[in-house]
């Protein structure tokens, strides 16, 4: 081996080593900064109380309205996404199982749909809202977020369903079950771990997304009781508080960012744990 070869080898090995670890460090640094800045401002009052008078000028209170609002919104959207997305994912893997080309085309479109930015969904949700004559409300927000997360849910669930061997379906048919029974009792059960992961992935995405609800959900200091009331969301609450010139309000935005990050981390970690737990029941 000549000398240049060795130098080149080491040079690129070191470069890629540095790249890999700097990626880890940057992302770690991000979490540390956000937590470090926010933990100091975090208090029980922020988590468990509603905004009081003059909250955005430094008055007392918390962001319970935004936390609960985000949960309402994302829960509603996830339910809607499951109603539309679950049968669609099963359809791709049961009825279309022999049509590989159609399957691939559908997956290809869903993947492309995944990449559309949430601000576009937000603008579209706004157009739908005007079309249906709705105001900025929980319902409009739920519809918009559901549009955003349905492709994610379908594709993530489908990714698991497609690994289930065809023989399992054939066995089910040979025992005389219908396609519906095969889909719901065999395929859904077998892919249940994947379904949980997909569900939580979509839910987390719904909680964290700000741009799609900017137009459609409105903002309020109250927790909505009915579907036609506006709703506050956590990301927007952070965004609004951060643009305040008052230091105290900005501090609370940092605290809210910690709350949001923790919620998202809990969701993604529990998605992993749950999917591991439910995959024990799978027939191999």
């Amino acid at each position: 081996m000549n000398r240049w070869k060795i130098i080149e080898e080491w040079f690129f090995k070191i470069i890629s080593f540095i790249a890999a670890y700097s990626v880890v460090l940057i992302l770690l640094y991000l979490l540390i900064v956000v937590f470090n800045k926010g933990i100091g401002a975090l208090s029980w009052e922020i988590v468990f109380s509603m905004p009081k008078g003059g909250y955005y000028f430094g008055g007392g209170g918390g962001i319970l309205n935004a936390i609960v609002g985000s949960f309402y919104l994302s829960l509603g959207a996830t339910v809607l996404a499951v109603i539309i997305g679950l049968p669609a994912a099963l359809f791709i893997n049961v009825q279309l199982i022999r049509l590989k080309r159609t399957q691939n085309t559908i997956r290809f479109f869903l993947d492309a749909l995944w990449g559309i930015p949430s601000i576009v969904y937000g603008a579209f949700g706004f157009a739908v809202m005007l079309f249906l004559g709705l105001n900025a409300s929980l319902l409009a927000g739920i519809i918009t977020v559901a549009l955003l997360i349905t492709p994610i849910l379908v594709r993530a669930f489908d990714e698991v369903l497609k690994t289930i061997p065809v023989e399992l379906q054939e066995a089910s048919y040979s025992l005389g079950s219908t396609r519906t029974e095969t889909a719901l009792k065999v395929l859904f059960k077998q892919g249940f771990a994947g379904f949980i992961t997909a569900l939580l992935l979509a839910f987390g995405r719904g909680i964290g997304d700000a741009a799609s609800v900017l137009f459609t959900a409105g903002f309020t200091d109250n927790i909505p009781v009915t579907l036609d009331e506006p709703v506050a969301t956590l990301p927007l609450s952070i965004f609004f508080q951060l643009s305040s010139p008052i230091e105290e309000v900005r501090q609370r935005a940092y605290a809210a960012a910690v709350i949001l990050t923790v919620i998202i981390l809990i969701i993604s970690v529990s998605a992993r744990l749950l999917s591991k737990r439910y995959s024990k029941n799978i027939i191999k």
Partner: protein
Amino acid sequence: MNRKRRLTDSLVNIWMRGGLYIILAIPVFIGIGLYWKAAPLLNEHSLTDLIFSSKWFPMKGEFGFLPFIFSSVYVTLLAFILSAPLCLFAAIYLTQFSKRRLLNFMLPVIDILAGIPSVVYGVWGILVIVPLVSGSIAPFFGATSSGYSLLAGGIVLAVMCIPYMLNMLIEVFHTIPVGMKEASLSLGATHWEMVKHVIIRKGFPGIISAFGLGIAKAFGETIAVLMVVGNTLNITLSPFKAGYPLPALIANNYGEMMSIPDYDSALMFAALLLFVVILIINLFFRYFIHKTEKI
């Protein structure tokens, strides 16, 4: 088969089929809906006028999107230049040089980080990147900057794209058959030569696609960029000046869009523009991936 079972079967079948059709119709409806709202503007101005004019005076009815498009492209390219090499080398290290254990540890971590909301990245940008740009980077180049700049937007976007692109690149490198790598090594190639001649060459379509999809994601990212980019109309090559990307324009002006005539159509046109550009990029590179996956 009794009648009840048959009935359930056909009803559920309709439900499943309906669900799928609804989802596949979403992009069509988005296109139609946005076009419907943007139509008043498109009737009054020609498309080239809207895209290539830099006169932005909504009060006078002049809508030139060039400054916004320019800022969007600038920030996206900056993010791409910063993150692409980093991701490529990191993916090479994780899949080729490091121990399997590190990769197994990193994959879930990357996944989790990809799920962190963009507003958190924005908070980080304000806390770290903005002071960094105004305090160190701009003075180093002899410029003054408030920190809220195209560069800050680019850096935050780059960091946001890292988990996304890295994930795809790792997947691409995993699809390359081990036999090919072994053949190369057995002929006396060093590890790097193997990477250079086999991994990069064989994975080239995948790498390009991952980069392309990363660009598409950066192009449409809203909140995080909006928080650090300054939001001032500017066509400038200096990265230390503020910019105003398209998504930020939409997000910033939703409050006043009903009070100025045609302003709402202008914002919907911006959304339509984003939608079309990103859908085309996505379809193109996804097609690329689907083609290569089959081979």
